[in-house]
């Protein structure tokens, strides 16, 4: 067996460094300008600040708001990890009944936008929802036994639809990593729990941190679900300021605070990841022998079954129940098929561009860190810090002033998606690349392949599942995007989330639910295909 786990400093390629630095600096600079210009624009706007609104905010509620937002993000991340990690372990490392089905369906709740999930669950757990109505009828007492409009309710909804980020990353890491260590540990007499905490968990740490980071940053910048659930966060406050005072300097200043928070979170991730890296030299991992659950098998199946029922079955059922008539729903779908197409092609272009740039950035970050790779990697991560609305307004100013022929076309929507979700692409691809060892590439180079050929013939085949999964991730995120799309779409060009939003504010929940189901189905399709390939 040629497996080797090494604890070492990241690899260094000393040869021709300076030549390389020049060669890579141009694309790196172009990409950084493209992705960071909105942030730079915010900095410029924030400089001219003389806002009484911001001063008032700083005096009163700002620290409380930051604390509350961080708590919400932290609680959601922990909840998402505690939902997603066991599911990954059960489906990859045990003989739980239906493991391949759960592996296949486990990531699907990602296709349900959290704001739609929140609206759906309100029909069940809101103050006027089914559970409370039943309670009031049964007891005759006024009041509520459950209220989704709460901190806990928000954590519940957000974690149900973001845990797949943790699940996807950890499940594929479990599949890629050898089970040899676990087998050795077990043969030395360690119990299953001990094996998990001492062997499996440390090996999983990079992917767990990558997934957790995406959940955390998602919650920081989320507007839809938190505002449906009436929660005040940093992002809703930015939105409030923007829509009451039209004070863009104050908004820019607040967005920069959010960026600082994001940078701190990224640094924390890096610190937690440590200098250690775990790689394997073999091209392919031998599938692990599953842990036998023995008599616990049927009970263990309750976990994935319940999770799927709550995060997938229930919201879809609640959406179905909102549809008033089937012919009406069919007419809505036919009538609005054009908007579906608009969503699909913009998201597909953004995902393709995002994966291309993510591959470039990830490769450079891991193999050419000193030649601009590190700068590019960190620069692209910053894009997650800007809430959709703020990003949209920033892009409007930039492109309408400097590239007016692009502004007012659907390309703006694609640019918006690409910038918002590039951190997902970079995280996903870097995570996959981290587990391939540079010696495999060096061997290919040594055999006479050029850099591009090496990437095409060695790197890409090695990480193809990771590339596909990342494409699907960016595609789904783009399909769901609402805040930036509302601003960036040209007049007359609506996407599905925009249509759902329009019907929701008109309180036409039948139409909104019909389109939400279409959105979920279409987003789920590539995910199901990719995951199907994985399990068969």
């Amino acid at each position, binding site marked *: 067996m040629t497996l080797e786990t090494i604890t070492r400093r990241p690899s260094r390629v000393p040869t021709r460094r300076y030549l390389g630095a020049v060669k890579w600096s141009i694309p790196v600079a172009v990409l950084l300008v493209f992705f960071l210009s909105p942030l730079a624009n915010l900095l410029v706007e924030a400089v001219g600040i003389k806002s009484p609104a911001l001063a008032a905010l700083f005096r009163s509620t700002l620290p409380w708001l930051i604390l509350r937002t961080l708590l919400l993000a932290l609680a959601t991340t922990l909840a998402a990890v505690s939902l997603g990690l066991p599911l990954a372990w059960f489906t990859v490392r045990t003989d739980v009944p239906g493991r391949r089905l759960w592996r296949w369906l486990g990531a699907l709740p990602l296709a349900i936008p959290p704001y739609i999930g929140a609206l759906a669950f309100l029909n069940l757990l809101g103050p006027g929802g089914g559970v409370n109505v039943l309670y009031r009828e049964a007891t005759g007492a006024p009041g509520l036994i459950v209220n989704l409009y709460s901190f806990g309710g928000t954590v519940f909804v957000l974690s149900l639809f973001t845990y797949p980020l943790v699940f996807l990353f950890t499940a594929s890491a479990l599949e890629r990593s050898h089970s040899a260590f676990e087998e050795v540990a077990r043969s030395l007499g360690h119990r299953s729990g001990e094996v998990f905490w001492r062997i499996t968990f440390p090996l999983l740490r990079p992917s767990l941190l990558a997934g957790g980071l995406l959940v955390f940053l998602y919650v920081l910048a989320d507007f839809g679900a938190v505002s449906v659930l009436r929660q005040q966060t940093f992002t809703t406050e930015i939105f409030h300021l923007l*829509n009451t005072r039209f004070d863009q300097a104050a908004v820019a200043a607040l967005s920069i605070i959010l960026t600082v928070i994001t940078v701190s979170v990224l640094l924390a991730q890096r610190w937690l990841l440590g200098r250690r890296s775990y790689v394997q030299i073999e091209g392919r991992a031998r599938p692990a022998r599953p842990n036998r659950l023995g008599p616990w098998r049927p009970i263990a199946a309750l976990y994935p079954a319940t999770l799927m029922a709550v995060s997938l079955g229930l919201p879809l059922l609640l959406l179905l129940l909102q549809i008033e008539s089937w012919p009406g729903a069919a007419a809505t779908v036919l009538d609005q098929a054009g908007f579906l197409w608009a969503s699909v092609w913009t998201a597909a272009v953004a995902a393709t561009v995002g994966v291309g740039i993510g591959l470039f950035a990830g490769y450079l970050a891991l193999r050419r860190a000193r030649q601009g790779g590190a700068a590019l990697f960190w620069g692209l991560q910053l894009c997650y810090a800007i809430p959709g609305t703020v990003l949209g307004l920033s892009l409007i100013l930039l492109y309408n002033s400097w590239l007016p022929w692009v502004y007012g076309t659907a390309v703006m929507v694609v640019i918006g998606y690409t910038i918002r979700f590039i951190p997902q692409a970079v995280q996903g691809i870097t995570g996959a690349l981290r587990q391939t060892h540079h010696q495999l590439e060096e061997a290919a180079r040594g055999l006479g392949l050029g850099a591009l050929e090496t990437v095409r013939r060695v790197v890409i085949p090695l990480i193809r599942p990771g590339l596909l999964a990342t494409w699907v991730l960016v595609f789904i995120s783009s399909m769901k995007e609402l805040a930036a799309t509302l601003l960036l779409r040209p007049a007359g060009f609506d996407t599905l989330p925009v249509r759902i939003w329009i019907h929701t504010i008109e*309180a036409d929940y039948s139409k909104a639910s019909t389109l939400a189901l279409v959105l979920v189905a279409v987003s789920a399709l590539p995910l199901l295909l990719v995951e199907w390939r994985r399990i068969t």
Partner: protein
Amino acid sequence: MALLRSRASVFLVIACLILVPLFLLIGSSSSGAQELVVYSGRKEIAIKPVIEAFEKKTGIRVALKIGKTGGFINQLIQERRNPQADVFISTTAGAVISILDRGLFYPYVSPAAGSLPDAYKSPDGFWTGISGRARILMYNTQLIKPEEVPRSVFDLTDPKYRGLVAIASTRERTTLGWLSALVDFLGEAEAKAYVEKLRANGLHILPDNTDVRRGVGNGEFALGLTNSPNFYLTQREGSPVGVIFPDQGPGQMGALINPNTVSIVRGAGNLDEAKQFVDFILSPEVAATLVQNAFEIPLHPDVTPGVVQGLGDFSPAAVNQSRLGSLAERTLEIFPDF
């Protein structure tokens, strides 16, 4: 390797399939510069029939973008160097008035606005009212008896209404307009005292008016301070709701009317078409359509209000829209976290 190459070609084909419509779209939208671009803060259900009628009558193609009034104002500010929109439809006059000093709008006094009451149009033509929505008190008939519903918003501070009342935040321009009207009517100190009492009595401040209308409709709240069409829409859905037009007695404040307004964007690429559109939307036939589709109050004296209470059926608050608009900034300072 052959497999890889065939995969690569499949990807290329897919990429082409994606890129071709992309370029087609770019082409069509740049050649479509003759389209009249309308940004509407009013909901699609209300404004779309008007747009369709306009297209049919004039043959001018319209590109419609639906959003929130506040969002569009930010967008218009960002687009100021190279305006994209021709016409802006706002849900309150105050939103337009509060940013008049930024020079975003083109003054146009439409001949069709002649018969409109002065209170609902700008003398310079920066904005003109197309229909109105009254601030009303909506209640859930299963939670509160009609005779127990207060006749004045100032009675809502009574402890018997503790925790029963919901209102949208100032993110909704209509709420901001109502707060400004309070400041105008009562003076700063008294308005502040009233709102503080209201909040001390457990007022629920929700993100937007849809939350209020949904909450009163499904029994989460007994009372909601919101806009008149919300009552009619909730009633049409079959929810048990009633309505009070508050403060109707002599010397009382009256029910505030927030006019929906139309403005032409300064620098509009299609000024003539924009003027035609403004003339069209101000005509009595269109006012009638808006009333029917969205339960709005006609401002035009010739239009019958139909099922809704018209201007003659209740006593509106006597306010000056320009004064309300200029009070907006101050109002936000007085009520920073509303």
